[in-house]
C-alpha cells in the first residue's frame, strides 16, 4: 500500500471526480457518432443476406425491468440501421430473442442453438452476472462473436474468460458500482464516519459492500461500519434492517438493494424517517427505467445508476450523442432510456462501425477476425460518453456516473439533480491491464479491490 500524504480533495481531483452541472461526458468528440453518420460506400461486393443477431435478455421475471429497456434499445438500433439499408448498406438485421429467465443451463443451450442452428452473426444482450460467466466460455468455444450488454461481474474477465477472443462487454465493470458510490459519498459527505450498510444477501450485495468500503475507507479516514443488514432474497419487510441501521446512529447508510426490493425498502424507510436521520447512498437506485421510480422517492440521496448512464447526463444537452439518442428513443418508445437501453443500442452501432472499418481495410464483407480486431481498442462514441474497449480483456470502459435524486417539474418521476451530477473516469477506478487477478498473489474479491487496496493512498 502506498503511504503518501494526500488530502481528499487532491486525490478526488486526481481521480477526475467531477461534480455539478458542468460535468460533461467526455471531451467533444472529434468525429460524428456512428448513428449520425452516413457511411461511405462499402468496398467490394457485399452480400444482401440478412444478418442474424441473437439478443438474450430478461423478457419475464424480475429482470424484465432491465430486459425490456435492453430489447428496446436493440430494436431501435436495428430499425435505424435497417432503414439505412442495413450494415454496409446491404445486410439488414434480423433479431432472434431469447428469454434469459429460462435459467443459466437453458441459456447456454440457447446460445449453442443460436450459433449452431440459427447461424447467428452476433450474440448480444444478457443482463445477469450469473449468466455471462457461463455464456462467455461457450461463446469462446463456439467462436461466436458476442457483445454482452451487461452481466458486469468482474469474475467474467478475472476468472471465466481471462483471455477473451470472441467475447466483449459494453457495460462498466461491477466493481465500479461500489467505488463510484464511495467516491460520490466521500466527495459529498466527507464528515460521514459512521457507516451502516443494507445490502442484498448475495454476491452483488457483498461486491458493493466490499468495494464501497475499500474505496470510502481510503478517502475518509477513520470510518467505522456500525451496522450491517443483509436482507435475504425475497424479503419484503425491510423494517428490521432499517431500524437496525438507524439505531446504530450512522452518518451514512449505504445500500445496493435494487429494483422492486429497493422500492419497497425506500417506501418503508420513509415511514421511519430514515432519510432524515442519516445520509443515504445507493449504488443502483435509479438503474431501472427512469419512469419506474415514484415521485415520493427521497430527494438529495445518492441514487446510483450502476455507474453507467443516465438519460439526463450531462445536463443541458451538452453531449449531442445523448441528446440524439434520448430523442430517438423517446420518439420510438415514448419513454426514457436507462443504461441497458444505451448499452444494447450502442452494441449494434459498435458492431456496425467495426464492420465498416474492417471493410475499408479488406473490402467485401469482413471476416470475423477482422471485425474483432477493429473492436479491440476501439474508441466509440455512445450516449454515455466515449467508450473504450480495452484490448486485453475486451471490457468496455466509459466514465462512471452517479448523482443525487431530485424532483423536477419536467418529469413525473425524480431524476438525478442536474446541478449535482457526478462523473468519474472509469480507468481511474478500475484495475489497470495485467493487474493480478484473484488467486494470483492475492485473494481479494477482485483485481480492482486489490488494486485500490495496494495503490490508493490513505488520504489524511
Amino acid at each position: 500500500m502506498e503511504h503518501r500524504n494526500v488530502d481528499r480533495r487532491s486525490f478526488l481531483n486526481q481521480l477526475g471526480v467531477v461534480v455539478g452541472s458542468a460535468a460533461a461526458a467526455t471531451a467533444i468528440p472529434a468525429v460524428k457518432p456512428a448513428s449520425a453518420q452516413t457511411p461511405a460506400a462499402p468496398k467490394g461486393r457485399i452480400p444482401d443476406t440478412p444478418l442474424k443477431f441473437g439478443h438474450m435478455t430478461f423478457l419475464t421475471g424480475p429482470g424484465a425491468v432491465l430486459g425490456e429497456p435492453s430489447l428496446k434499445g436493440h430494436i431501435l438500433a436495428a430499425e435505424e440501421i435497417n432503414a439505412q439499408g442495413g450494415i454496409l448498406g446491404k445486410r439488414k438485421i434480423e433479431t432472434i430473442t431469447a428469454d434469459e429467465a429460462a435459467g443459466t443451463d437453458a441459456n447456454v443451450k440457447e446460445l449453442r442453438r443460436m450459433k449452431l442452428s440459427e447461424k447467428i452473426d452476433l450474440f448480444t444482450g444478457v443482463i445477469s452476472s450469473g449468466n455471462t460467466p457461463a455464456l462467455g466460455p461457450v461463446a469462446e468455444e463456439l467462436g461466436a462473436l458476442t457483445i454482452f450488454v451487461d452481466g458486469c461481474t468482474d469474475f467474467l474477465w478475472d476468472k471465466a474468460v481471462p483471455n477473451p477472443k470472441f467475447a466483449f462487454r459494453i457495460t462498466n465493470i461491477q466493481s465500479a458500482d461500489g467505488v463510484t458510490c464511495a467516491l460520490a459519498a466521500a466527495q459529498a459527505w466527507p464528515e460521514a464516519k459512521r457507516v451502516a450498510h443494507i445490502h442484498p444477501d448475495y454476491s452483488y450485495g457483498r461486491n458493493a459492500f466490499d468495494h464501497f468500503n475499500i474505496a470510502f475507507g481510503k478517502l475518509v479516514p477513520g470510518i467505522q461500519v456500525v451496522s450491517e443488514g443483509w436482507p435475504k432474497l425475497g424479503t419484503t419487510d425491510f423494517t428490521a434492517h432499517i431500524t437496525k441501521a438507524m439505531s446504530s446512529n450512522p452518518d451514512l447508510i449505504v445500500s445496493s438493494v435494487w429494483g422492486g426490493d429497493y422500492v419497497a425498502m425506500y417506501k418503508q424507510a420513509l415511514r421511519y424517517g430514515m432519510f432524515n436521520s442519516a445520509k443515504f447512498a445507493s449504488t443502483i437506485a435509479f438503474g431501472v427505467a427512469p419512469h419506474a421510480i415514484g415521485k415520493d422517492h427521497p430527494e438529495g440521496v445518492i441514487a446510483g445508476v450502476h455507474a453507467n448512464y443516465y438519460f439526463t447526463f450531462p445536463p443541458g444537452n451538452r453531449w449531442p450523442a445523448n441528446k440524439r439518442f434520448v430523442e430517438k428513443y423517446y420518439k420510438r418508445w415514448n419513454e426514457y432510456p436507462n443504461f441497458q437501453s444505451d448499452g444494447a443500442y450502442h452494441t449494434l452501432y459498435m458492431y456496425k462501425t467495426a464492420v465498416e472499418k474492417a471493410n475499408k481495410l479488406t473490402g467485401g464483407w469482413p471476416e470475423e477476425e477482422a471485425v474483432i480486431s477493429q473492436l479491440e481498442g476501439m474508441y466509440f462514441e455512445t450516449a454515455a460518453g466515449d467508450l473504450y474497449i480495452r484490448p486485453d480483456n475486451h471490457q468496455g470502459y466509459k466514465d462512471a456516473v452517479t448523482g443525487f435524486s431530485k424532483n423536477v417539474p419536467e418529469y413525473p418521476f425524480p431524476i438525478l439533480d442536474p446541478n449535482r451530477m457526478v462523473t468519474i473516469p472509469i480507468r481511474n477506478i478500475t484495475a489497470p491491464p495485467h493487474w493480478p487477478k484473484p488467486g494470483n498473489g492475492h485473494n481479494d474479491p477482485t483485481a480492482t479491490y486489490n488494486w485500490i487496496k495496494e495503490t490508493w493512498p490513505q488520504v489524511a
Partner: protein
Amino acid sequence: MSLHPASPRARICGVVLGLICAVVTVPPSAQADHAVSYFPSFYPHEIRIEPLDPEGAAREFVNKSDPLHVYVGTAPSFSGQIPQHLKSVESLKSLVTVSVNPQSSRLQAREARCHAIEQAAAALDAPPDVVIHPYPITPYHADYLGHADRVSPANATPTPTGAPTPTFRAGADAALLSPRARVQATDWDVSLDETSVSALLIDAGVGFNDWPAPPWTKEGWFQAYQLLRPSLSQANDQKQADELYDRLTHNEFRDRTEQINLERELLAALIGSCERAVVGYRLRREFYTDDFSDGIENIAVDSQSGLNSAVFLRTVKLKDFLWNGTLRIGIDPRPTAAWNPIAGFNDAAGRLVWSTVGDNAFLPIPYNSRWVQNRAEIRTTDESGIKRSVRVPDDALMPETMAGRFGQVGPGHGAMTKVLYRLSASNFSDASVMEAADLLYPYALAFRWGAGGQHAGAHDPEIAAATRLIRERLRGLKLLRVEETSRSVADQTFTYRSPIIEIYLDNLAFDELENALVAPPWSSVPWHVLALMEAAVERGIAAFSRGEAERRHLPWLDLVRDPAQLKTFRALIKEFAQTGYRPAALESLVGPEAAKARWQLLDQFVEANGHLLVTNGPYRLKSWSPDAFVFEVVREFTYPVGLGTFNGFAYPARALITAMERAGDLVLVSTDAEFAVKQQRDHRLVRAPLQPDTLRGTLLPIRPESHYVVIGKDGRVAAAGSLVRQPDHRFAASLPTTLQSGVYTLFAAIFLDGNTINPAIGRIELRDSGTIGKAGRAGGPKDEEGKP
C-alpha cells in the same frame, strides 16, 4: 409406486421422502450482480380484499391516503362523473333468458312459444350493459365462431310485431323490461330471468375450489346445456339433448367438424322447443385505477369472471412498485360462502380468496376456454397422440368406491389414455412438506364422499357433483419417481423435486391437455387438513357444503371465520396428534409417527395464525376481519412459480380482419392487430398490420391462432380447420378437397395469442365451391365474394 402387503410403507418411503422441496446451496464464487432471474410468487407482497358496496367503492377509489386499486364484481356507484384516473374492463356476467310458462294456455304450441319469446325479447328495455343477443353462445364464449351464422346482426335486434305481447311474471328481472310491458303475478306467459355465469357453473357442480373444473367449463355449449336443459319438458327433447351432451363430454366425434356439428345440434335441441331461450347477456364492468403513482397495470381480464380470476392476481402489479406493494381490492357482494376448499369458497369473495391462497394444477386462461399449466406439467409418453387403449399396470392404484382406500388395480385392466404428469411440489404454509399422500388423498376423498348416495355413511352431493368426472373416468394412478431440478438465483442454487405420476383415464380428447384436466393428481391442501375436515363432518361438527349444512342443520365448515368450529378443530388436532391419526385410506402411505408430526405442525400453525387455511399457493392468509382479508406473499423459494410467469396473459392482442378474398381453392384473410404497447407507466392501444415480428405489451411476440368454419346452406358445418400464414403475411384457408359442390359461407377468425373475446369474424360467401365433381376446378370469377 408399488403397494404389496409385505411392507408397503418401506417400498414407498423413498419416494415419499423424496418430495422434500427447495434446498438452497450457495456456491463459493461470486458471480452475480443485481439482476436475479427468479422471484417466487407474484407482484404485490400483500393483498387486501375488502367487501365493499358500490357506493363505498366509489368513495374508496378517491381516498387520497390509501386508494382502492380495483373493484371486483360490479361497477362502483359514482355520484358524479367517473374519476379520470379510473379505467374499466368488461366480461360476461350473466345470460338473460325468457322462459315460457308451461301453464300458459296461450302458449302450448311451439310456434306460439317461439313467437312469444320473440315478442318478449322485443319488449326488453336493455340498459347499456345488456346486449340483445338471441342465442346462448356469446362473443365471450370461445366456441362462438362455430355458431357465427346463427347470430347475424339481422336477428340480433328483435322487432315487435302487431301481435299482443306476452305477459311477464312479476318478481322476475322486470327491471330489464320496457315500461309498456305487462307484468302480472299470476297467469303470466313468460318469465324474464337473469342467470349469472358463476351461478350456472356452481349449479353444474363446478367447485371453484380444490377440485378440478371440467375442461369445458367456459364453453358456450356446456353453459347452454346447464341453462336450458332443465326447461325441456318433452322426453324426446330431453333424450336428444342428453345424448348430444354425452357425446360431447365423452369426446365421441371424429374430428373438429363433427364436434362443431354436435355442438350446433345440441344448441338446436335446447332451443328448438322454445320453452326457454337466451335473449341477451349482461356485461360486467369492473374498474381499476390507472393513476400514474397509485395505479395498477399488467391486467389480465377473464372473459367470464373478469377480474375475479387466478391469473389476474398473478399478473397485476402496482405501478409505483417494480414488484411488491400492497394491492387493495374491493369486492361485491359481501361473502356468504364458507371457507373450506372441499365445498366452499363458491361465492365471488370466496372464489377470489381461493384464487389467492390456493394453487390449482391448471388455471383457466383468461381469454379463451383453455387452461394453462400451473403446478402440473404434462409430459409426452410413448402413447401420446396414439388413439388406442392402454393397459393399466397391475400395481397401479385405485381408490375403492365408498371406502376410498387405495388398492391395486390388478391384472387385466385397461384405460383409454394415460397422462404423465410432472408436478411442482412445494411446502404447505404449516411447513409440512408435500408428500405422495397429499397428492393422492383427494382421490380417496372424492370416491368416499362422492360415490355413495344420499343414504351412504359418507356422502355430500356437492362433492359428488364436483368429482363426477374423476370418479367416472379415473382407472388407475401410479407414482413413478421423483425428479430433481435446480434453479440458480444470483449466487444461490435451489433444488426442487417433482413427483412424476401416471394417471390412467377413460377419456380420449383430441387435446392431451384436455385429458390432463380430468383428474390431475394434485391438491393445494395437505392431506391432514382434508382429513381434519372429513373427521369434523363425520363427527357432526359441520358439513362440507351449504346444501348439506342446511339439510343436516349444521354449520357450513369454515377453516377460518367460525370461532366455535375452530375451537372444536383444535381439540381434534390435539387428539390426532396424540394418536397419530391418519385416515384409513392413507394407512399404507403414512405411518403414525409421520401423521403425528403433521398434526403437531398443524397445531403450531393454528396457534400462531388462528386459522386452518393451510395451502401451498402464492399467498397466505395473514389476518382477517369482516371488513378486510389480508394475504401476504410467499417469497420463499420453496414456491416454484415465479414473478412474470403469466405476464403473457396481460393485455392480449386482438385481430381485426381487414379483407377476405377468394383465390381458387384458397380464401385469403388480411389482418391488422390491435395491441397494447407499454409506454412508461401507461399502455396505449396501437393498430398495425399483423406481421411475424409484431410485438405487444412488454415486447412479447404475438402468436396468432387462426380458425375457419365452412357452413353449408343446410346449416351443417362442412369443414373446419386452421388457416396457414402466407409469405405476404395473409392467412389462407384451403378449401378441403372433400367439399361437395354447392354454396357455402366461410367464417374466419384470427385469435391473437388465443384471444377469443369478442372476435372480429370475417365471412365470405362461396358459390360453386367444392372440388368434388368439379375436377379440381378453382373458383371462377363469378364467385360472389363478401366483405368481412
